[in-house]
């Protein structure tokens, strides 16, 4: 049992911070992100893979599914967010304004948002992201391209602002 624990613990210590970052971007709330991350690791130590890197991918998959379930519940409670479409009425995007960055990320559709977070925040490779979200690598790249394009549009708008 001890080697199982040590593998789970090693996975936890290596991946927990990045997983919380990913979930923070998904569920828009730090405390909920931590709860979901801990629940994912709790499931890992009880019935997940006992070797790495399988455990790493497994825990990201479980966390993603839990986050999507959380979002579904949240959207039942309130109207669905509109897909982000930058307009001239938007204030210029300031990458130092944390709240604005979070709002912008939250306004992205789920698919590109999760890929963007897994890539840019959690640091997973394309192949690892494909394993986590169960899409092929090319689709992952397309989703990532869409998400980056949305962010860049805002970024460019900020740069061109007087």
């Amino acid at each position, binding site marked *: 049992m001890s080697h199982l624990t040590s593998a789970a613990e090693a996975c936890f210590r290596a991946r927990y911070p*990045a997983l919380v970052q990913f979930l923070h971007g998904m569920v828009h709330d730090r405390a909920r992100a931590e709860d979901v991350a801990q629940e994912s690791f709790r499931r890992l130590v009880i019935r997940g893979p006992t070797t790495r890197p399988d455990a790493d991918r497994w825990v990201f998959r479980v966390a993603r599914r839990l986050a999507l379930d959380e979002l579904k519940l949240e959207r039942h409670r309130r109207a669905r967010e509109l897909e982000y479409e930058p307009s001239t009425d938007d204030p210029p995007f300031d990458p130092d304004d944390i709240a604005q960055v979070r709002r912008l990320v939250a306004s992205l559709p789920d698919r590109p948002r999760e890929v963007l977070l897994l890539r840019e*925040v959690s640091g997973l*490779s394309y192949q690892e992201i494909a394993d986590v979200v169960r899409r092929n690598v090319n689709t992952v790249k397309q989703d990532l391209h869409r998400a980056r394009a949305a962010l860049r549009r805002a970024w460019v708008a900020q740069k061109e602002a007087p």
Partner: protein
Amino acid sequence: MTFEPEDPEVRDPLHRAFPAATSDDVERAWGRVSTARRGAGAWAATMRATIAAALVLAAFVAGYATGRSNRVAPAERGGIEQQLPSDQQLHITVRPPALLPASVIGGAP
């Protein structure tokens, strides 16, 4: 897993907006997760003990029921004891197998 920085212009604002957990956060969270694991282990041990006890009980009940069905039925229920006179003796004759020579079993040549 490998970290492949690709687009710092996008990545840096995201890292500021969604900061990583501190080492204290990690330690606290691991405390909760490992406690849950021990709880789950204790629950699994309890379940194993319960199942083992249930199996022993089932085996005992099954053995008891089998033992009862193999008994000779009591006389008042019309069992075999009623059909035998109380003073009758049971004679059992054991015959040697036909293929064995009589010398083997100590009989007359």
